[in-house]
């Protein structure tokens, strides 16, 4: 009797210990996994699906990076291999380990016509459909790896110095980056030649960033999510017939909250507390 009691106590204790240690491990593991996937400033290969899903889907096989480095166009004149654009994140890169990314200032994406990195993806992390045009052909111009952003204050073109390195480096020249002429009032006789990025065309390849002449590039690629804002659905362009159609059947809505009984001039003049 005493023996079976002992056994039961021992069994309870070891079970509790196993469950407890598993719970401890689960908490640490979850916390760690959640932290390592939080690295928003990362540029993915062409046709990558949305980052949140990409982190789930990427099976870390490296087939995209291998296709990138071994593509025919990636050879020096003596036939030797150059480094590829795509890097497989390793410890110390501070990106989700094992996932592909690229750094434009090191090696930008050269936007191959046949996009060798995309069709090899077995998992669906790179979605070939997103880079197929109407004729069902691969079209790298449809890729949205990121969006180039110009920092006016460090771009020498905005100082009035003539530089169009980014404009010339751009693979979709004259479309993704255009040069806008503006009068230079400081000198009175020169013009500003300002690079303007068009977000509907820019693929985020990073050739502009690589070409930029300033010490830290004044034009650089950010993930599209980070480089764009959103006005929201409640703005309707009154001058745009198509946009007007969105509110064709709209009904009036009355929102009632604490401010509703006050006059607008009253609550706008109050201290901020809503």
């Amino acid at each position, binding site marked *: 009797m005493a023996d079976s009691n002992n056994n039961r106590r021992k069994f309870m204790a070891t079970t509790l*210990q*196993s469950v407890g*240690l*598993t719970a401890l*491990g*689960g908490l640490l*593991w*979850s916390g*760690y*996994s*959640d932290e*390592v*996937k939080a690295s928003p400033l990362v540029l993915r290969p062409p046709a990558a699906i949305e980052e*949140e*899903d990409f*982190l*789930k*889907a990427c*099976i*870390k*096989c*490296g*087939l995209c*990076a*291998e296709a990138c*480095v*071994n593509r025919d166009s990636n050879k020096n004149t003596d036939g030797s*291999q150059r480094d590829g654009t795509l*890097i*497989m994140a*390793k*410890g*110390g*890169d501070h990106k*989700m*380990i*094992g996932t592909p990314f690229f750094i434009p200032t090191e090696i930008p994406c050269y936007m191959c016509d046949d996009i060798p990195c995309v069709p090899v*993806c*077995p*998992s*669906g992390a790179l979605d070939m459909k997103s880079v197929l045009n109407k004729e069902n052909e691969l079209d790298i111009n449809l890729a949205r790896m990121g969006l180039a952003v110009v920092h006016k204050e460090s771009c020498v073109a905005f100082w009035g110095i003539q530089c169009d390195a980014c404009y010339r480096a751009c693979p979709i020249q004259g479309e993704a980056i255009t040069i806008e002429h503006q009068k230079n009032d400081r000198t009175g006789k020169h013009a500003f030649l300002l690079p303007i990025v068009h977000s509907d065309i820019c693929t985020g390849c990073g050739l502009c960033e690589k070409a930029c002449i300033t010490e830290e590039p004044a034009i650089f690629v950010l993930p599209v999510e980070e480089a764009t804002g959103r006005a929201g659905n409640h703005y309707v362009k009154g001058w745009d017939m198509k946009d007007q159609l969105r509110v064709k059947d709209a009904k009036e809505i009355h929102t009632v909250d604490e401010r509703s009984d006050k006059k607008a001039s009253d609550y706008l003049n109050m201290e901020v507390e809503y």
Partner: protein
Amino acid sequence: MKNIKYLLLRRVSQFTILFLYFGANAYGWHMLEGTFGASRLFGFIPLSDPYMVIQVLASGFVLGVDVLLGALIIILFYMIVGGRAFCSWVCPINMVTDLANWLRRKLNLDKEEINYRFIKRRARYWIMVLGIIVSAVVGVAAFEVLSPITIMQRGIIFGFGAGIAVVIAIFLFDLFGIKNGWCGHLCPLGATYSIIGKTSLIRVDHNHENCTNCMDCKVVCPENQVLYMINKESIMVTDGECTNCGRCIDVCNDDALEFNIRNFIKK
């Protein structure tokens, strides 16, 4: 030479496989491309890691057909032929933990009875299930954020970076921590292959008539609980946790152990 036959064969197998993977990136070979997560054999046969696939599915992403087919091929291969052979014939971490284990014996660390008993061999199955749960909760394949196996493999193919620290950590853990700590207690991939490989045909066979009870096999075996029949019964090692590494066969001087094909028909 006789007593390192399978050891040598295994090293040849591990190095060849890793070299083919390495060459796929470095020289553009099409023999074996990718990594363990997903590979292509001869440029068209998909292969993929079943545990990885389960984690990704748990995280809520429906994988491409190629990857699912690849996992099926791998599962069938180890189920029918290999058993847990991935661990001892393919996995690069095996070389690290084998080295740690060998050093343990040379440094007499096993005799010192440093015994961390709170980690049992079955912990790996808990970890395997936990990994799937964590994948579902966090929304990312959880084992892959720290797996020393793929970190080491990618290290060899694409360069290590700070990832080498994980490999060193495993080495130190197995050397100064728990004997066979990683491969025999914690690794959830090994646990997966233990389950998959349970039914495989290639097995170590014990002939108890020849056995002189020297116990050399139990000393070298990384999963020596599977050798419970030594000098007791003439039966096969059918436990899924046996990695089919063949070290026991190598060290046996009495021809009491040999690889054999399991016969399910006659019983």
